[in-house]
């Protein structure tokens, strides 16, 4: 799919619990505007919540960039979470369910991967972690499928 990427339409800091609320609201608002269905909205908002909290708890704070993207006539939303924390030592381990370096359930990173359409982690030890996720609004229903 050829992607055309728009300019970053929002960049939110993630430094407190209140910022997590703002990040969720921002994603909810943007997905609704882009025509995401309720399920896809909820999935991406939940993924954003997990990743933003990871950036806050494990990365010591960071930011979330939201960008509208278009691919194959479908609109989508790309979220980039970046922090300057210690980085992820073992990515496969971090992505496995139930593993946690903190006190959580250990479902955040792996769970977020299952909630979005595209998922990429770039992490360098000592330099920080960047997680990029993209989800697409479902293709518009074909006329015959309409009620």
């Amino acid at each position: 799919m050829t992607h055309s990427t728009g300019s970053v339409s929002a960049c939110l800091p993630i430094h407190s619990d209140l910022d997590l609320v703002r990040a969720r609201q921002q994603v909810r608002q943007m997905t609704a505007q882009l025509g995401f269905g309720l399920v896809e909205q909820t999935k991406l908002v939940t993924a954003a919540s997990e990743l933003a909290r990871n950036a806050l708890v494990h990365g010591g704070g960071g930011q979330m960039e939201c960008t509208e993207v278009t691919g194959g006539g479908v609109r989508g939303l790309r979220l980039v979470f970046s922090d300057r924390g210690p980085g992820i030592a073992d990515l496969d381990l971090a992505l496995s369910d139930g593993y946690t370096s903190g006190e959580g359930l250990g479902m955040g990173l792996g769970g977020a991967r299952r909630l979005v359409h595209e998922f990429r982690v770039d992490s360098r030890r000592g330099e920080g972690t960047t997680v990029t996720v993209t989800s697409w609004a479902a293709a518009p229903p074909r006329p015959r499928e309409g009620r």
Partner: protein
Amino acid sequence: MPEQQTADDRTGPAQEVALFLRERREQIAQRWADAAVFRTVFTVSRDEAVEAGRAVVEALAAVAATGRVEDSEADGFTVVREQLARTVRSRTRAGASTGQISAETDALRRPVTELLLDELAEAPADHVGECTTALAVLMGTLRLVMLETSTVAGEELINRQRLELLEIATPVIKLWEGIVAVPLIGTLDSARSQVVMETLLDAVVEQHARLAILDITGVPTVDSLVAQHLMKTVAAARLMGAECIVSGIRPAIAQTIVHLGIDLSSVLTRASLADALAYALQQQGARIVPRAVAAAESR
């Protein structure tokens, strides 16, 4: 008279404004008493509003007399700062935005400028210009002082509302003998989930509840942390002998929880509060039946 002062005297216009403010104090205060920023705050009597206006005029005169009309930290403001803060708090509580308060403060400028122009009717044009500019700057500084206090008042308001939300958002409702429900609304951050757990466990003890329903219809996002809080609450209630039912799981939330990979199988869940209540009643040996059916059965 100050009119004799030369235009190139640097503090001249400001001090003339100070003199004007002192002399016309009563008149200005009378006019200001009808302005929104005084009228809506000092509601007991008009005299009270006039009194408040007089205090502000005096403060402005004191600031002007020192020539520091542009300085919001000027000593002259100290005496009225508390009064201004009270004004701003009162307007904020009444729902006025910072912009509105700013506009209301700005509305004080016009009556006092008109009085100044009357006073200077005979003076040369450039002198009039200097004095009205000094007054305009001074009134702008008053607005800045108001806005500074309004920022502080806004922060206080937010903190108060946050505390209120913690309290309000977690009522425990007794639905039936031995059945309580907690409708959860909004974000379940750590502080909120702690309050939820405490109020629920207290209710379990007080109401001798054997069944507790946690309704999450009003929780917009259920991520792994929220799920973890729910599971902990359920586990704690179970230790106290109460069974928890989590209700209000919407289709989108259910699918998200499955994708997220959270195992909620240890928690009893129902789609709606009504389903949860029906289950709870059944557990308590009670049943709701239509009257006709009950009559038929008793026959």
